């Protein structure tokens, strides 16, 4: 069976959008619910939380990609409209997390 390129593109876009969304949710959860050490008292730690969040985000994006692909195969235009809205929502989410829950 020949793969259609447009749904694959939609899947790629969906996966890329999920990365910052997952990043913002993970950081928001950490800031709200986990007790973190004061950065002024910690010299450094082996675990770089930012890289960890990006890796988890990439993993979640990879999981979301097949779902977006299936949705795009069913209705490409509606899926793209959803992704259009997703850009604004994810942007707002990351902006809110970045400014309010650093």
């Amino acid at each position, binding site marked *: 069976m020949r793969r259609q390129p447009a749904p694959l593109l939609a899947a790629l876009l969906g996966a890329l959008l999920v990365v*910052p969304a997952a990043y913002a949710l993970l950081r928001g959860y950490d800031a709200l619910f986990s007790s973190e050490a004061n950065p002024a008292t910690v*010299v450094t730690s082996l675990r770089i939380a930012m890289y960890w969040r990006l890796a988890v985000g990439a993993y979640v994006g990879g999981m979301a990609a097949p779902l977006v692909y299936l949705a795009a195969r069913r209705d490409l235009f509606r899926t793209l409209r959803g992704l259009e809205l997703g850009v604004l929502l994810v942007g707002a989410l990351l902006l809110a997390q970045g400014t309010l829950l*650093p």
Partner: protein
Amino acid sequence: MTLALRVLERVHGHLGWLAVAALAHPAILLRDPRRRARLSVSLATALVVVTGGLGATIYPDYRARVKQRIFLEAPALGWMFERKEHLAVGVLAFALVGCAAHLGVTLCTEPEARLSLGRLSHRAFVVSLLMAVVVASIGVAVASFKSF
């Protein structure tokens, strides 16, 4: 080693502002979703990726050498840098989304889907640009306070 990190930090900062200028181009140009600007989109995204890669390269040393000192002397500035990190992720992700959507328009045959991808690309570059302005401004504030 310290000198090399200092140079890389300066290069990262200058490339960051160049990336802001480069992102402004597709953000303005793609207001019309039918408009094609493959070179502008590709170069702007490439600059963002290179800047982000450089930042990620020096980030572990920043954490080990600079971060604690900033938090001790000016905690507010330390938290500003944390904000910069988070928004920088957005700059990179949205630039990649915008680039993929713009370059991928040719894969779609339906006119409605092509228009939708054009709008998506424009929105992504606008969001990326807005975040990049904040990121670059915070970067200057922090770098002028303390460096490697």
